[in-house]
């Protein structure tokens, strides 16, 4: 009886703990939405408080976004464009490399794989200055080529695709060869479709990375019309007070699509993000 009571109490407290934690976690998002409904003058004067004053709150900030002349949707479009192109290219090249490393045995294979692991450990930030000089020399500064090209092969994705490709049925490979398929044809027509789940997970990971990417685009992109959302938002920040009316409603519109997509494709998000170290 006593033991039963004990487990009941711990059950309740553990669940309460998680409920509380979830509320705390979701609180900043609630704040974001709340702030987007308040006039920026009030935010500047009083900061964000929890007062739900219906007389002051309105959708004016959103209306302001949609009225012509705001650069916000330009940034949104840029972010979206970059996301699509960079995700598609990165997935294609990374899957190719990962597949090559998994399926064939050839000289230098182990060295290449170690290099993949090594790159995963060395952050880009260390060499961003020469990399920036290079983009200047190649005349790809302030262009999306400059943002995408240096990272077109993502080591994390190569690693993941390699792990996945190790489990592909080798018998298919042989029978396709007998049928006269080229090696690349085998990859494109037979193996790629088999790697669909890996593509799902990596697509989400890369797309999220691109959507939230900050430092490198901040360095490469120079003109306002080329900015992506995070860079655009950051350009509106200043130590002395911010252009809140565009910033906050814009932030809400940038976050909500991802959360909706997440709720639909949770499995892919989670396997993509936790894939790195755990056997695929």
């Amino acid at each position, binding site marked *: 009886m006593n033991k039963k009571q004990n487990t009941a109490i*711990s059950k309740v407290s553990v669940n309460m703990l998680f409920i509380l934690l979830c509320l705390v976690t979701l609180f*900043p998002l609630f*704040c974001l939405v709340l702030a987007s409904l308040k006039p920026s003058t009030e935010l500047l004067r009083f900061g964000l408080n929890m007062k739900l004053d219906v007389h002051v709150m309105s959708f004016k900030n959103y209306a302001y976004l949609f009225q012509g002349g705001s650069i916000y949707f330009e940034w949104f479009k840029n972010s979206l464009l970059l996301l699509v192109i960079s995700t598609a290219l990165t997935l294609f090249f990374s899957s190719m490399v990962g597949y090559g490393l998994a399926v064939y045995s050839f000289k230098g294979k182990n060295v290449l794989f170690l290099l993949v692991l090594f790159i995963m450990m060395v952050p880009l930030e*260390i*060499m961003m200055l020469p990399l920036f000089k290079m983009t200047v020399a190649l005349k790809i500064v302030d262009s999306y080529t400059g943002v995408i090209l240096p990272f077109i092969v993502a080591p994390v994705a190569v690693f993941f695709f390699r792990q996945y490709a190790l489990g592909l049925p080798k018998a298919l490979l042989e029978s396709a060869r007998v049928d*006269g398929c080229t*090696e690349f044809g085998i990859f494109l027509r037979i193996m790629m479709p088999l790697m669909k789940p890996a593509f799902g997970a990596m697509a989400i990971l890369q797309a999220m990375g691109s959507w939230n990417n900050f430092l490198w685009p901040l360095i490469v992109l120079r003109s306002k019309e080329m900015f992506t959302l995070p860079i655009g938002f950051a350009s509106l920040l200043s130590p002395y007070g911010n252009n809140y009316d565009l910033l906050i409603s814009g932030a809400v519109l940038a976050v909500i699509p991802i959360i909706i997509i997440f709720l639909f494709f949770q499995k892919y998000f989670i396997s993509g*993000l936790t894939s790195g170290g755990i056997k695929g």
Partner: protein
Amino acid sequence: MKVVHSNTQPVMLSEEKKRSWLSGLLYSRKVAPYVFVAPFIISFLVFFAYPLVQTFVMSFQEVLPGETTFVGLENYRKLNNQTFYTALLNTVQYTFWTLVVLIPIPLVLAVLLNSRMTRFKNIFKSALFIPVLTSTIIAGIVFRLIFGDMSSAFMNSFLIKLGLKPELWLSSEGTGMFVMVLLASWRWLGVNMLYFLAGLQNISNDLYEAADIDGASTFQKFFHITLPSLKPVTVYVLTISIVGGFRMFEESYVFWQNYSPGDIGLTLVGYIYQQGLAYNNMGLGAAIGIVLLMIILIVSVISLKLSGSFKEEH
């Protein structure tokens, strides 16, 4: 893996003779692997190896538009200044605190979530995962609002209600660090928890059943079965957290951009950015980069060594 030399080989050979040189290439099993890995080799050489070597070279140079001069160790000597030490200290502190928060707490939460005690597992998992979907910039904007300086801003009004004094959160060292660590913890707690959850799935139930038969307590099971079994995951999370901590930039940029009062938000990467791109002092920036690289390599080798993961072959 082994390439299977099956009896299809002779057929392939005789066919291959008929084909042109190009299609011979397409079918060749000797050439194909190199075609597949070529994108990696090229991008590694051009966008990794070359810039890495350049960083090293640059750290011994004074780089001015149109001319570079070799200055020996001058840039490294210049690192002996207060700003650099502030940046280094901030980065180490930030990394330390994120490790303190983002390893034990997600681990315990994962164990609790995995236990039979918790209901609504998927809802909890999703809710805790959502923060990482927001960019650091957007999350930082919200944190700036919550931690605003006015006494009417949320956090301060909360402090006042508790009978405490309001803070100028982003103006002093301790509170600035606190808000940065909080921002990172908010975003990554759920993800780290998922790593540990994934690790927990790999522990065989038999171990726990055997322990139950031996009459082990919940705590004994946690310390003698769960923790040791989670070691590989813990090492992984530890390593990526260390690297993540040392490369921190955004969490500080969103609060102060390039200049924080008294450099309370200056990190090593922020210092590279400031020197290299804002002051056009690329040589010094590169030297900071090399120091950062050394730190990251040493710290991750130590953490891998201490955890004994060099012994296990992966």
